[in-house]
């Protein structure tokens, strides 16, 4: 058995993982980053819009401050997040932005002088701000606060970050997957890792292990997430039996993923006056939301779209039903300039020219607010020596809804925090490692692989994966109710049974993709069950979690966070709850037009705005 020892083992080479490693390395620790893909290919690169930080350099940012950013974030979260974490985050975000600039990110800069906004207002950028970092407008924020690099913010951030990792000589082992954590019930000692080039197993031993593997979007089949986002880090954390996942029922959907492919097209299409049409090319949002129409909040629009398709008004395709987004009336000039990215996505991936043709869209899973539950410094609950950062984690910045632009900012800020925590915890301590734990864990993984290679199992991994995706999309998506959620839990439990009986159709040797999927599958069903079961138990509506049968936020009973562990051999997660930390801003109205005490229908119609 090959064993590699290091100070810090970071699982995941996206922005959060790399920033954590850079912080720990610059404090003298040896770090190894494990990544499914070369780090510059991580899903962080897909974040195009921007990174929130209260820089206050723009005319429309006047009066912005960490306080305002804090308030926006807590309201966006529907008071489901940790306010001490939000405070720390908004304070560090501007420093993170400037440090990324120091490391080479070409942030767009303030150009002094007057300019005309799309709504006709003329604003004047100040002379004294010329050349400082610019920001643009994002939904759900009071001020212009999203710092950006043209249309490739995530790309530029990830390249700059990875370049620093290269400069510091941080070792990256790419095309590997952590398949189990090594632990002794109280302390984490590292991970058993499968080399996706060769199929070989290795053990990595480290006093500090950091999970930074991003979201689990792909468990939902229809997701804007990269195909590698299958929740692998959350799976191995939950697999320990002692580490809880927090608020897994909090899942964000975006109304306009294209069909097929599920690539996001921006809300700017609707912001600029685009329509949503059904199979009869009827503009149906006018019927549901006479006041706001397509510009109702992201969650509301998603719910209306799904409802309308369920009534049979979707366009049927081999990829499932969809609706149309119509921006033809905005004109060629507007589309080619203001919506250039959208036009490119349509032409490159759909062969659709949005100047003359309709764009096929439907609501698509977008972001996981839940993840490995940690304290406010990134230490995972349940196991010493285990940490988490970024979308894979739940230190709980986002509560039940993430504000647009806060995800990029979180990856970097939390990486700074967790890297510091790891170094602090390591200082002056001895590391005693129980070799038996590594041997046992590796044997268990070897046995799982041998069982699959031996054959005899009947279930085909891609059938099960598609089944999980269908159940979640149908019953645990934008609309939720007790009856459907109960059914979803029951059906997912059946799939979980079947996942114990997987069989390979190919030989499974070396870098065989069927073997990799088969090893992930049982854990993916557990995560799906955790989402569905948590949603079933939470009898209220908060942020993205919308219950048709409990349409109100219920602060009396549900101002608390779900903690889900999975006991060995169990068929369902064990749910516990902990209170949400309110340090500054007591629960109130989010200010998106929703009003407490309205009829559920009216409240649903107005519920939350937000984000990008």
């Amino acid at each position, binding site marked *: 058995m090959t064993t590699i020892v290091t100070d810090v083992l970071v699982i995941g080479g996206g922005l959060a993982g790399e920033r954590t490693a850079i912080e720990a390395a610059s404090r003298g620790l040896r770090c190894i980053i494990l990544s499914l893909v070369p780090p510059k290919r991580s899903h962080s690169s897909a974040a195009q819009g921007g990174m929130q930080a209260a820089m206050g350099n723009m005319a429309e940012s006047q009066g912005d401050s960490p306080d305002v950013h804090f308030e926006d974030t807590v309201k966006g979260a529907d008071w489901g997040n940790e306010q001490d974490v939000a405070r720390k985050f908004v304070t560090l975000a501007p420093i993170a932005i*400037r440090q990324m600039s120091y490391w080479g990110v070409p*942030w767009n800069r303030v150009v002094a002088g007057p300019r005309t906004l799309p709504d006709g207002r003329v604003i004047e950028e100040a002379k004294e701000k010329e050349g*400082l970092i610019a920001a643009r407008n994002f939904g759900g924020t009071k001020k212009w606060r999203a710092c950006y690099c043209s249309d490739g913010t995530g790309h530029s951030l990830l390249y700059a970050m990875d370049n620093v990792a*290269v400069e510091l000589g941080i070792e990256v082992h790419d095309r590997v997957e952590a398949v189990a954590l090594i632990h002794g019930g109280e302390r984490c000692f590292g991970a058993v890792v499968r080399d996706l080039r060769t*199929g070989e197993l290795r053990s990595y031993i480290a006093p500090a292990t950091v999970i930074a593997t991003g979201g689990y979007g792909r468990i939902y089949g229809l997701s804007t997430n990269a195909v590698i986002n299958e929740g692998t880090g959350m799976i191995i954390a939950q697999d320990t039996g002692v580490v809880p996942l927090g608020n897994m029922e909090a899942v964000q959907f975006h109304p306009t993923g294209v069909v097929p492919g599920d690539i996001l097209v921006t809300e700017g299409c609707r912001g600029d006056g685009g329509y949503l049409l059904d199979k009869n090319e009827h503009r149906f949002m006018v019927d549901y939301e006479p006041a706001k129409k397509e510009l109702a909040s992201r969650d509301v629009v998603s719910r209306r779209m799904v409802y309308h398709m369920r009534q049979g008004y979707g366009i049927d395709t081999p990829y499932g039903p969809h609706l149309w987004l119509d921006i033809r009336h905005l004109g060629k000039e507007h589309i080619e300039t203001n919506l250039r990215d959208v036009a490119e996505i349509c032409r490159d991936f759909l062969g*659709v020219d949005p100047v003359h043709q309709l764009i096929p869209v439907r609501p698509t899973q977008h972001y996981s607010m839940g993840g490995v539950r940690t304290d406010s410094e990134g230490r995972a609950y349940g196991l010493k020596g285990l940490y988490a950062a970024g979308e894979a984690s739940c230190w709980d910045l986002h509560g039940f809804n993430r504000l647009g632009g806060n995800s990029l900012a979180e990856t970097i800020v939390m990486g700074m925090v967790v890297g510091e925590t790891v170094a602090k915890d390591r200082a002056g301590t001895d590391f005693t490692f129980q070799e038996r734990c590594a041997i046992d864990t590796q044997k268990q993984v070897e046995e799982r692989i041998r069982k699959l290679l031996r054959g005899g199992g009947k279930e085909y991994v891609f059938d099960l994966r598609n089944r999980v995706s269908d159940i979640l999309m149908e019953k645990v998506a934008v609309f939720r109710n007790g009856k459907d959620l109960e059914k979803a839990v029951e059906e997912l439990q059946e799939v979980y049974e079947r996942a114990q009986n997987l069989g390979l159709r190919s030989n499974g040797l070396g*870098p065989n993709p069927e073997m990799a999927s088969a090893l992930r599958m049982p854990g993916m069903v557990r995560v799906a069950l955790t989402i569905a079961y948590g949603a079933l138990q939470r009898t209220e509506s908060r942020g993205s979690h919308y219950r048709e049968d409990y349409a109100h936020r219920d602060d009396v009973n549900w101002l608390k966070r779900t903690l889900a562990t999975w006991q060995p051999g169990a068929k369902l997660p064990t749910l516990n709850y902990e209170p949400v930390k309110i340090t500054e801003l007591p629960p109130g109205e989010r200010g998106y037009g929703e009003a407490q005490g309205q009829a559920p229908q009216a409240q649903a119609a107005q519920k939350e705005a937000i984000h990008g």
Partner: protein
Amino acid sequence: MARTLHFSIFRHNPYDPQSVPRMQSYTLDETPRATLFTTLNRIREEQDPSLQFDFVCRAAICGSCAMLVNGRPLLACKTRTEELPETITMHPLPFFRLVGDLSVDTGSWFGEMEQRVESWVHQQHSFDPNGLEERMSNDKALEIYELERCIECGCCLAACGVALMRPDFLGAAGMLRVARYLADPRDHRSEAQVLEVLAPDSAVSGCVGFLACDDFCPKNLPLEEQWAFARRWLLAHGALSDNRPTPQRIG
């Protein structure tokens, strides 16, 4: 009328002792708006779960899925089947080490390139967390951004005749990375370092100017212009003699 597509795909798993390099045929009905991303996944799920290929973002952002399709290097995710004839041949990208089937190891090559060109900002001072950011004109920021849009897909190297003959060739991707730092006022690397990287035959002097890199870059990066810039920079710094024939674009 839906077409039937005939695929001929390169197969080899170096970790299977029984495996020999070969071409394998698959037949599939074409679905509307299908890309090679959706199509290859259908082949894997419906016909052959052992088929290896790499996709990550499937939105032409991450650079994972470059391969040869009917002999031309391109990003599979942004290639729609309706742009292709009924018979489609697919090979892994040349130049990079084969992982298996259509999957190649681009990560190792780009990692080494980044060490070689020192792909990071060479700052002269340390970061001050309490200070304001250094000012920069927006035009300068946009210029740098244009030069760092490379997604490391490897199409430029797979298309390059020189790279196929000499494995140490820096390629357009490496040259562009140097140009990106030369354009950045925050970078203070020495001229000697740039000369050492750009001047040898394994870099700018070795380029024969076919410019297939420019033809096949899926991000339409200004590679031709940047080769010219690099050559001019070397001339200005005395690294290329004037009587050396200047490479010309052919055709």
